[in-house]
């Protein structure tokens, strides 16, 4: 790959990282606005107003909407005909270093056990990259997640006894939200993974967290559970920010896999109200399309959509 093309590839990804750190994706922004407009409790409404004002200033001043820009994680679908497969890892790495210096992002990568901060958000094993193959495609599909400290703290997974059943799953999730969710900047996105063991359930819960709000599991029983959990968590009313209000969550997404009859694995991944995630497709000619955002930072070359709310 010639140097010029590689630079274009790095710039595309680092611009994408900049956008994700400064403005929220359309699905989360839309849900936030809906919650803000429906909040009747004055103290909670004032809090949402403040959060909204913060989004406005972040976009205008081109500064990260939250100081915790997380540890950066990529979930990439590599088209088997994408021409620059060998470059992906290096490009993602370089794009993170570039965005960290230029936006700037907070350097959050501390090396294992020595606790030394690398200063660049890159280091041993980070940015974290998960690969999947997309047969026949010539695109690179990238989902990015900024894993913040506060919103990562409640994440957990456990293997329940099958006899604990559906009620056991619900109880585990609700207790986690009450005990730890109050500190994780609610209203939260709750990603739930149901599988056989702790690691597969945790991985599925992250996949659930990445799925856009407003979509549902294709498995009817899981869809029912998504709605039921959302309504029952909202009934508890921990949002905004644990002070108490009319809701708790932006949404509940469940991803599941058939499991061993002797185990009931449950994973939970939580996202804060300002969950920063994004989705971009890079084509073989290195042109790209952002699939997640309709609002862009003021200094971005991409234009904010006309139908976007005026923030």
């Amino acid at each position: 790959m010639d140097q010029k093309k590689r630079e274009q590839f790095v710039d595309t990804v680092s611009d994408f990282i900049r956008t994700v750190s400064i403005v929220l994706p359309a699905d989360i922004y839309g849900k936030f606005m809906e919650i803000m407009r429906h909040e009747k409790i004055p103290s909670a409404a004032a809090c949402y107003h403040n959060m909204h004002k913060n989004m406005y200033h972040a976009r205008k001043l081109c500064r990260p909407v939250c100081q915790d820009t997380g540890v950066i994680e990529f979930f990439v679908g590599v088209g088997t005909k994408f021409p620059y497969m060998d470059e992906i890892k290096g490009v993602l790495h370089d794009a993170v270093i570039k965005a960290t210096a230029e936006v700037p992002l907070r350097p959050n990568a501390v090396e294992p056990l020595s606790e030394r901060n690398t200063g660049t958000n890159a280091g041993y094993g980070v940015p974290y990259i998960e690969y999947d193959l997309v047969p026949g495609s010539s695109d690179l599909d990238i989902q990015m997640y900024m894993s913040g400290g506060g919103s990562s703290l409640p994440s957990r997974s456990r293997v329940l006894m099958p006899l604990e059943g559906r009620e056991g799953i619900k109880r585990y999730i609700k207790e986690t939200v009450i005990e730890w969710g109050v500190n994780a900047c609610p209203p939260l996105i709750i990603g739930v993974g149901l599988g056989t063991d702790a690691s597969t359930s945790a991985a599925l819960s992250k996949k659930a967290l990445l799925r856009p709000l407003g979509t549902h599991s294709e498995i009817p029983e899981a869809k029912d559970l998504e709605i039921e959990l959302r309504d029952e968590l909202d009934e508890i009313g921990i949002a905004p920010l644990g002070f108490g209000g009319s809701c708790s969550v932006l949404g509940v997404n469940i991803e599941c896999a058939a499991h061993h009859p002797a185990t009931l694995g449950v994973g939970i991944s939580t996202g804060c109200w300002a969950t920063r995630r994004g989705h971009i497709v890079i084509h073989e000619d290195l042109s790209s399309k952002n699939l997640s955002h309709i609002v862009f930072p003021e200094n971005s070359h991409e234009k904010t959509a006309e139908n976007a709310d005026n923030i």
Partner: protein
Amino acid sequence: MRKLLKTPITYDQIKDLRTGDTVYLSGELVTCRDAGHRRVLREGVMPELVDLKDGAIFHAGPIVGKDEDGKEYIVSIGPTTSRRMELAEADFIEKTGIRLIIGKGGMEAKTAEACREHGAIHCAFPGGCAVIAAREVEEITGCEWRDLGMPEALWIMRVKGFGPMVVSIDTTGANLFEERKKLYRSALDAAEE
């Protein structure tokens, strides 16, 4: 009650505040989180550039940028989860004489008891409002322990009207978030009956 606190913070300034009250801060604010607490308590080292007695700490790790003249400024700053410091905060209060702790969410029984005993309060600043908070920081006046990295270093800042914050633990030891959690729990239990 709404009140503006000014550093150095005397016991008189905070003794009548109660959980749920709204406060703002003007004066000196110092960031201190996991590694800062560890250094003070485990390694027994006190910061040299700042006196924490009657002071205010912020559980926060900012993004710090440099302007055209090379002067450091706060790009974004917001609270981190205070509960992580629960293991250390009571001893930290006793050792430093700090009066105001600002963070996200609540803290637990040991910190609440230390607040009652030594006359300190914990306040919650809204999480995820990092650009608003950065605009309330007038200047970075110093930085200690840079070796801990940007998030964990002690950033010493002059702030004006920093807030609004909600008192979550007061000088009587009352604890807003623990009370809230009891309410949330009873809502959960009621729904299951």
